[in-house]
């Protein structure tokens, strides 16, 4: 892929400047607000757009892709407004959610056609296409008609078509739909490599596990609003008004539990089948205090793990808010 | 179905309980295949007339029905108000043939209405996994469309009947006079409805896109009418005589003429000088072939 000759001149956006920038973007349909005052800026790396179905993820992606006009606010992609400038698409690769692709074209023909539509001449297009197809591991099926592909294969060929012109920005709408676990891992690997090369990748998903594994940064969308953004561990830490939960293994769980109950920061302890769980309202205070108290009581702590730092707990908390 | 007591079937323990709010089983009587077919028939019939759906679905069927009935009603009203007038231009013999465009539009618009969305939304597999066989499905749909067309044809003729009876000075005598027309009033709609329904469904069953089906059915009616007209005017001899047969409505009217009624004054039928049973046979052929094609299609379609 990186060996392919570059497509005709249009300087790719520098990864330092924000590749995608939204400022107070809202989109409504009559009385229904699909996207409500969202602002963020992306510059490199993999960002996951997470939210329940109907939250506005697809709308947001289509706004960024220039297919919808914001009812208010501005959407800037590669330095230009997203709408009305077809030239912007030189810098953007889009993988749409809908399954449909041209069933009568073969994989190769489709990716080549997309390359040519990006401005490459036929020899360039052919080379770039075979590179892209190799990247998504579709070389074996590339000469079959897309109509014969399985869902996962179609997704992969769509990704190849989006990558063929080496865009600095990639937008993927539910890209892992229909992929089996192995294909998913390979795709995640590919996206991570792309991001490491300096690209900006934004993908949407309602599956926590995918976002957890792949995204360096998460944008949580709930009912059209941006509920949280950033690394999900950081978000967790910011949610100070919800108790953190830790699981502890120590030399004497019961005694430790009794001691810790005396600590103001501890909201509750539970001893369940030999597993000591501690809930604390104040993360910082607790961590400062726990080892001291344990040593005072002569107890050794073997293991202290946060047990609800997963994206799931963050997410369900945010959704319920 | 009576709501189940949540406590029944709940899992309980000392500290909590899980309530089974989900799948509710059904222990009542299960009706068989006949009930399934009957249900499909009635629901399809309702669908043809847009009953149980939004206003937009009702516009075309009821609008066309109005167009079908209004001329008869107007004629009946006029003959009632102006009793000493000429003979009404509408008779039992020429009314249905005169309704040809309305019937064509109705079939073209509503045949796809009852079969296309099932294919488009891939629900055929749901239908076929029940007591309903593939043929049952096709026959139920055919029955529903034919019944709808039957009603569409019947009502105007009834209006003519009522008009003739009620407008007369002596109602009872007029009733007796008109009684001889009853076989035609009840039978002619049947002769028109069944072949048209078969023809329309045979075409509509082949595509899940409603608009294409509508276009195809209309195209068939338009082209056959146009060609029949051209052949009638432009050619002589055998071709000129049988040319009008390309128009299905000519066939249907001929069958009606043969079995139940008389030839209206402007009819192309006398000019064709064909033995009348031929019309009957052709009408039957349209119904049989159309029905057969529909059944074949549903036997073969992937569900």
């Amino acid at each position: 892929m990186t060996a392919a000759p570059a497509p005709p001149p249009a300087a790719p956006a520098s990864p330092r400047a924000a590749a995608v920038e939204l400022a107070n973007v809202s989109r409504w349909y009559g009385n229904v607000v699909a996207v409500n005052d969202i602002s963020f800026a992306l510059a490199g790396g993999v960002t996951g757009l997470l939210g329940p179905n109907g939250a506005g993820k697809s709308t947001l992606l289509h706004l960024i892709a220039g297919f919808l006009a914001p009812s208010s606010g501005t959407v800037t992609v590669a330095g230009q407004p997203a709408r009305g400038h077809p030239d912007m698409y030189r810098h953007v690769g889009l993988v749409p959610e809908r399954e449909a692709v041209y069933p009568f074209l073969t994989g190769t023909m489709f990716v080549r056609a997309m390359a040519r539509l990006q401005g490459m001449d036929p020899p360039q297009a052919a080379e770039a296409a075979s590179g892209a197809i190799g990247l998504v591991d579709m070389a074996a099926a590339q000469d079959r008609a897309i109509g014969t592909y399985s869902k996962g294969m179609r997704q992969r060929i769509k990704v190849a078509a989006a990558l063929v012109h080496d865009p600095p920005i990639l937008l993927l709408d539910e890209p892992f739909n229909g992929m089996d676990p192995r294909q998913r891992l390979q795709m995640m690997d590919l996206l991570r490599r792309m991001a490491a090369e300096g690209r900006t990748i934004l993908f949407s998903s309602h599956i926590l596990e995918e976002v957890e594994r792949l995204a360096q940064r998460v944008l949580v969308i709930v009912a059209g609003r941006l509920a949280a953004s950033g690394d999900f561990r950081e978000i967790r830490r910011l949610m100070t008004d919800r108790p953190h939960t830790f699981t502890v293994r120590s030399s004497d769980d019961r005694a430790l539990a009794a001691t810790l109950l005396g600590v103001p920061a501890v909201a509750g302890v539970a001893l369940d089948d030999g597993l000591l769980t501690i809930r604390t309202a104040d993360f910082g205070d607790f961590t400062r205090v726990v080892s001291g108290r344990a040593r005072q009581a002569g107890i050794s702590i073997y293991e202290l793990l946060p047990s609800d730092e997963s994206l799931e707990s963050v997410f369900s908390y945010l959704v319920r808010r | 179905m009576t709501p189940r007591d949540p406590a029944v079937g709940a899992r309980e323990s000392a500290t909590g309980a899980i309530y089974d709010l989900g799948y509710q089983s059904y222990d009542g009587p299960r009706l068989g295949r006949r009930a399934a077919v009957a249900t499909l028939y009635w629901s399809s019939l309702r669908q043809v007339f847009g009953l149980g759906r939004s206003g937009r679905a009702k516009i075309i069927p009821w609008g066309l029905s109005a167009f079908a009935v209004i001329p008869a009603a107007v004629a009946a009203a006029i003959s009632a108000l102006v009793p000493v007038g000429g003979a009404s231009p509408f008779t039992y013999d020429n009314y249905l043939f005169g309704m040809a465009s309305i019937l064509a539009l109705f079939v073209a618009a509503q045949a796809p209405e009852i079969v296309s969305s099932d294919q488009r939304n891939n629900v055929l597999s749901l239908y076929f996994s029940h007591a309903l066989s593939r043929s049952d499905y096709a026959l139920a749909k055919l029955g529903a469309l034919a019944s709808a067309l039957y009603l569409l044809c019947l009502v105007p003729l009834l209006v003519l009947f009522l008009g003739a009876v009620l407008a007369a000075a002596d109602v009872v005598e007029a009733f007796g006079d008109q009684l001889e027309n009853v076989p035609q009033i009840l039978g002619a709609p049947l002769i028109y409805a069944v072949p048209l329904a078969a023809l329309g469904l045979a075409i509509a069953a082949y595509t899940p896109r409603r608009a294409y089906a509508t276009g195809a059915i209309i195209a068939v009616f338009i082209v056959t009418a146009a060609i029949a007209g051209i052949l009638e005017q432009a050619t002589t001899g055998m071709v000129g005589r049988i040319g009008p047969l390309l128009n299905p409505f000519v066939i249907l009217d001929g069958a009606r003429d043969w079995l139940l009624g008389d030839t209206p004054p402007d009819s192309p039928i006398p000019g064709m000088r064909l033995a009348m049973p031929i019309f009957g046979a052709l009408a039957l052929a349209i119904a049989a072939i159309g029905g057969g094609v529909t059944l074949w299609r549903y036997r073969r379609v992937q569900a």
Partner: protein
Amino acid sequence: MNPVIAGITLRQLLSRRRTILLLLLGGVMVLVALIVRLAGDTSRSDEFTAGILANVGVATLMPLVALLFGTGAIGSELEDGTAVFLLAKPISRTTILLTKLAVAAGCSVLIACLPTFLAGMLGAGGLGGGLVLGFTLATAIGSIIYTALFVALSLITSRALVFGLGYVLVWEGLLSGLFAGTRTFSVRQHTLAFADALTDVPGSVFRAELEPLTAVIVGGLVLVAATVIAIRRLTAIEIAGETA
């Protein structure tokens, strides 16, 4: 004109089923002409041929062909969801639209004119003194105008096929028969007027209802307006996601 888009559109439009059905329709017209030739009064063959070309060709075949190709050119891509692949490219929307329009119009012209020419030749037993060529050319022009009209329609409503059928049947069929004024805005009448102007035949054989000049002006306006409207709608088109 973008050759890649043209290629894809061509492949989409000339799908096997569609092409076969339309050629069948054309074949019917040719068959009728043949029958009329064989069984009809040959002294009036010109008149009958003109009748076939006008009533089966211009009135039925041409609009149906243009309807299928016109609404399929962009409409089907928008419906299926493949339009995003073309729109998310650094290509001006004008180019995209004009390319698709050209391909659709080309297909319409081909599939409508070929049977017209053949039927005309058969029916008139030769070129019929300009009748056949005149009608064929007029059908070509009419097909282009119709196609542009239906492409624009497909960008205005998702039910373009139904509205297009309504236009052809109700406006051009029913109303034009009843109200002479509507004929000015009927592409069918424009085409017949072109045919009248382009053929040399006497009025007894064939006469159009509309003056050629009116047809040229209004028909041309329709063509230009439809194209411009289509380009503007494609430029401003909004595509929402399936799920939010």
